[in-house]
């Protein structure tokens, strides 16, 4: 087993904000690791430290066997990084953006590689179109093609599908899986639970600390969360009342049904007991990744005040 990412005790502060605290992360080669956590939890900062865009205040480790502090330049040559905000040149064409990337990475067979990338994207005909005129989904696919043009061994993606429609997201993830099948390691941050479930494993970060790690099933099992799903007319309107009951960590309405979760089974059952009557029907269900994450977010301490 070779680790593509192997970092320990990463710390980073901006002013008095300790944005990343003692984050250690190991990702095996060829794996897709989902990087999850609420906004402002330090995902972007961690990704930037991994690809040499930020220098950690303390901590150590390697990416692709290269030291993240002393060999940042070498990592940049072997890793691909896709920023959260579209950051290609909007006033250059699709082809020109790819050519630029090919040149700054000093690639050989530039024309061939650019043509291949255009073909894979299905943008051969639109190669002369300005990148700024592409729709959100296409922009992200172009950004991915640009970030992978130099055949990196490690791909760091920062919320690549934010604001992209479901079909474009699916295409995007199919491409990521295809790349991983070729041996590429991917660390991808996301807020979408369906995307998290498509990852081989997930890492959950909250308020700068890594608090859960493993496959989706492991993470769900580790939180020991018990979830009941209630159905019945108007049950969704009870979320406010039930959510405040002792033993209930959270209650969230999903259309006509209500998810009620807690870590103490007895207390939770006691809480919903008064509602275990007609017209409501209750059943214990497997907690969803979303239930688990909301639970993780709420229990982790906000150290920013």
């Amino acid at each position, binding site marked *: 087993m070779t680790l593509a990412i192997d970092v320990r005790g990463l710390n980073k502060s901006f002013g008095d904000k300790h944005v990343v605290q003692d984050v250690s992360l190991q990702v095996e080669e060829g794996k897709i690791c989902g990087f999850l956590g609420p906004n402002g939890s330090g995902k972007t900062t961690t990704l*930037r430290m991994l*690809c*040499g*865009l*930020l*220098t950690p205040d303390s901590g150590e480790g390697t990416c692709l066997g290269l030291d993240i502090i002393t060999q*940042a*330049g070498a990592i*940049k*040559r072997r890793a691909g*990084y896709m*920023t959260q*905000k*579209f*950051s*290609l*040149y*909007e006033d250059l064409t699709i082809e020109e953006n790819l050519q630029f*990337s090919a040149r*700054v*990475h*000093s690639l050989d067979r530039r024309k061939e590689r650019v043509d291949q990338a255009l073909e894979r994207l299905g943008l051969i005909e639109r190669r002369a179109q300005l990148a700024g005129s592409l729709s959100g989904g296409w922009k992200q696919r172009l950004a991915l093609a*640009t970030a992978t043009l130099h055949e990196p061994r490690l791909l760091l993606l920062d919320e690549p599908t934010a604001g992209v429609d479901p079909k474009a997201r699916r295409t995007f993830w199919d491409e990521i899986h295809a790349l991983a099948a070729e041996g590429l390691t991917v660390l991808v941050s996301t807020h979408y639970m369906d995307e998290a479930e498509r990852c081989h494993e997930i890492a959950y970060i909250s308020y700068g600390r890594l608090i859960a790690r493993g496959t989706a099933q492991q993470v769900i099992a580790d939180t020991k969360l018990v979830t009941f799903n209630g159905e019945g007319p108007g049950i969704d309107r009870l979320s406010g009342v039930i959510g405040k009951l002792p033993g209930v960590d959270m209650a969230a309405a999903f259309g006509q049904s209500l998810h009620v979760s807690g870590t103490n089974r007895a207390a939770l059952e006691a809480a919903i007991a008064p509602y275990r009557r007609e017209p409501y029907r209750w059943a214990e269900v497997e907690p969803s990744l979303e239930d688990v994450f909301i639970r993780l977010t709420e229990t982790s301490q906000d150290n920013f005040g």
Partner: protein
Amino acid sequence: MSGFSATRVLAVMIKEFKQLTRDRLTYAMMLALPVLQLLLFGYAINSEPRHLPTALLVQEDTVFARSITSALRNSAYFDLVAQARTPAELDDMIRRGEVQFAVTIPGDFTRRVVRGDQAQMLVEVDATDPSATGAAVAALAALPTQALGADLKGALARPTGEPLFEVVVHRRYNPEAITAYNIVPGLLGVILSMTLVMMTALSVTREAERGTMESLLATPVEPIEVMVGKLAPYVAVGLIQTAIILVLARLLFDVPMQGGWLGLSLGVGLFIVGSLALGFLMSTVAKTQLQAMQMSVFYILPSILLSGFMFPFRGMPAWAQALGEVVPVTHFLRIVRGALLKGQGLEDMWRELLALVAFVCVVTALAMARYRRTLD
């Protein structure tokens, strides 16, 4: 919903005012700029310069010659800074721009004054900048009476009104005192700074504002590679601008071109690179394109006002001249005017070229130190 609502105006107004105060640097510059500029330029600029450096070549050792020397010394317009031994030495001084005036008192001066035989003294003026010397030249008219009035008594006394000797004024390099000869070459420096500094000042801030900087930094590209790559296209722009300005200067304004092409070419090259590097440095400091623009304006004003472009350099007080020496346009103007109007060679302008080289090196070093490889 229609019509004019004071509340809605107020809403926009309050928002605008708050945004203004959030951008500290912009705000500070808006307040500091007028005060600073007013003090700086109000005290620095003097369109009637005095104490102009003057060299003297005295070819006879007589009472009259000493009287003239002391009359010049007493005048507020002339500062005797050098004594030349030969006419060639005097010529060098004025060509290099070390002195503004070269005064020659010929060997037969006293004899001719005494005989009343059309005595002359020669005042050569570096007239590349006509406005610098106008007042001083006018003051020369009173020199004969002031200088020798006391010496010519008794038998030597002249009827009033008759000139004791003639001051021959020789306006060199620009005999007709055509302002365009001075302004047009100067414009080359001003136009190049305005366009080049501004264009590159926006280059890095634009990347930062659009978010493309993050991608660029994630690539293996090195800071110096970014700088050279970003500046190279503008070098071409600068060269084309130079060519256009020089051609128009010749065709429309008949600006003389005496030679000095090698020095001029070196000067233009260094100045273009220096201006671009300065713009690049600004863009590494500024956080937004607006700030970058403000900085370039901040730079361009002294380039126009303190460089000797608009007002005579020698008219400024010593502290302002010291400031002016730091501005690269000052040196570039001397090179351009020296080359075009005086035909200066490298041996005359190497100091100015060296100053530009130093400027390029310092600014590039600062830009490299400022340029961030990371987003820290």
